[in-house]
């Protein structure tokens, strides 16, 4: 089955073609607009703006990759939400039009579900490419961490999700970006903080681990953000070393809370695999710590390649592929609308 995935929920416009056989997926093509040289000027914030430009860009992207009559494509998958309404609409309306024109089934996908299914995508450079891809076993405990999300979800089977925790205020990736700004670092903040933290002493500051003492699996990073701000304000002239120490201690506080809560959830829910998803999955400290704790608990930890951790359409196509196994998930093009508050069911 060949699935075309379309993703326009936030800053990126992305399309991808993924083919699947049983639970083995292959990415035929994955394109993200902001990564294309010629369209760099349209990338970045405000999908509404980008939406206007992206409408202009999306069709050339499609034309290059797919036959005009949609031959070869079996299913169209699109991010229906959550996200920014005008941005979502670009993708949704495009998908609806294609489904209607080509007479192919249409599957709406939840963006969060996409992040989880990124772990079903093969790594581009595989040591033994002829061997089947190892995919997560159910139940899978999923930690989704990005600029816009920080959630813990139990996946009992395909399409069967239960949210067990989420952020009450800021997302982890957002905390990285805002603290980076406080430290005078460039955007995107995550990699910049990680780089600065290498030179820093993570024990110099004991920043608050939001909600760690509570027995629930929710997160809170707003207090950590204000604690770092307040600490920097109290320090008069901040030396380079002190900045590095703040970065290291901040990163440690985030990683500590994410890993501890995830492992606490693992103890209670006894998953067969742990999935780390979302842009913050690129953070090496987070990955290393989670993989180590996973090994100790004898639970395999899945981390998708970086390209599939950031917003992309291959993950949406992957989610669409599994959704398409049940025809009840197809929708009439005319009835599909973007839903900025769409949630995992």
């Amino acid at each position, binding site marked *: 089955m060949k699935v075309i995935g379309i993703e326009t929920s936030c800053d990126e416009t992305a399309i991808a073609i993924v083919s699947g056989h049983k639970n083995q997926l292959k990415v035929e093509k994955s394109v993200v607009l902001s990564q294309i040289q010629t369209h760099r000027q349209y990338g970045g914030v405000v999908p*509404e703006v980008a939406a206007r430009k992206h409408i202009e860009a999306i069709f050339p992207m499609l034309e290059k990759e797919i036959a005009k009559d949609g031959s070869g494509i079996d299913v169209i998958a699109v991010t229906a939400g959550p996200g920014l309404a005008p941005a979502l609409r670009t993708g949704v309306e495009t998908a609806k039009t294609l489904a209607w024109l080509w007479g192919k089934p249409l599957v709406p996908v939840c963006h969060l579900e996409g992040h989880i299914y990124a772990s079903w995508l093969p790594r581009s450079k595989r040591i033994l490419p002829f061997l089947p891809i190892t995919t997560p076993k159910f139940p899978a405990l999923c930690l989704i961490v990005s600029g816009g999300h920080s959630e813990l979800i139990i996946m009992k089977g395909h399409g069967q999700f239960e949210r067990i925790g989420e952020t*009450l205020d800021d*997302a982890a990736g957002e905390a990285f970006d805002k603290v980076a700004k406080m430290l005078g670092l460039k955007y995107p903040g995550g990699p910049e903080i990680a780089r600065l933290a290498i030179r820093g002493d993570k024990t110099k500051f004991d920043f608050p681990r939001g909600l760690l003492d509570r027995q629930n699996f929710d997160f809170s990073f707003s207090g950590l953000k204000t604690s770092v701000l307040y600490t920097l304000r109290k320090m008069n002239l901040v030396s380079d070393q002190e900045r590095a120490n703040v970065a290291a201690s901040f990163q440690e506080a985030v990683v500590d809370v994410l890993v501890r809560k995830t492992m606490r959830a693992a103890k209670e829910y006894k998953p067969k695999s742990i999935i780390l998803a979302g842009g913050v999955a690129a953070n090496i400290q987070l990955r290393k710590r989670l993989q180590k704790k996973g090994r100790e608990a004898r639970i395999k930890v899945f981390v998708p390649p970086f390209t599939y951790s950031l917003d992309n359409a291959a993950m949406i196509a992957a989610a669409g592929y599994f959704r398409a196994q049940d025809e009840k998930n197809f929708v009439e093009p005319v009835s599909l609308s973007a839903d900025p508050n769409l949630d995992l069911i």
Partner: protein
Amino acid sequence: MTYETHSEKETHELAARFAATLRGGELIELVGDLGSGKTTFVRGVAEALGCKVKVKSPTFTVMNEYPVDNDKIKKIVHADFYRFEDPAHLEALALGDYSDDDTVIFVEWPDIFGEGILTPTHTINFEFVDEITRKIEL
């Protein structure tokens, strides 16, 4: 009037009193630095107006919409210009399109490019005093 709050709960209580004065159609600017209580305030207003959806930071989504259960107000739009780099983008966001008699719009970081971009009905100023204290000027 300037108020000082010493906890999230106190900020919510102040926000609830403010929410009681809303009739629908307002455009409210929230001006203040990182961590000064802007989103916490919106959360307090939303709760007071009977919102069941969780109010989270709109920084990444740019704009969140929350359905609300109140006589006069049916929706809260919660926007955040923090990530904007180009004034032209603000125009493209077409915030005005969301304006309605039964909608209240909150905007964080409306001053990202300087003043006078929006024509608000209210401007609330937030100040981070110390770890537990905020000054809120309604």
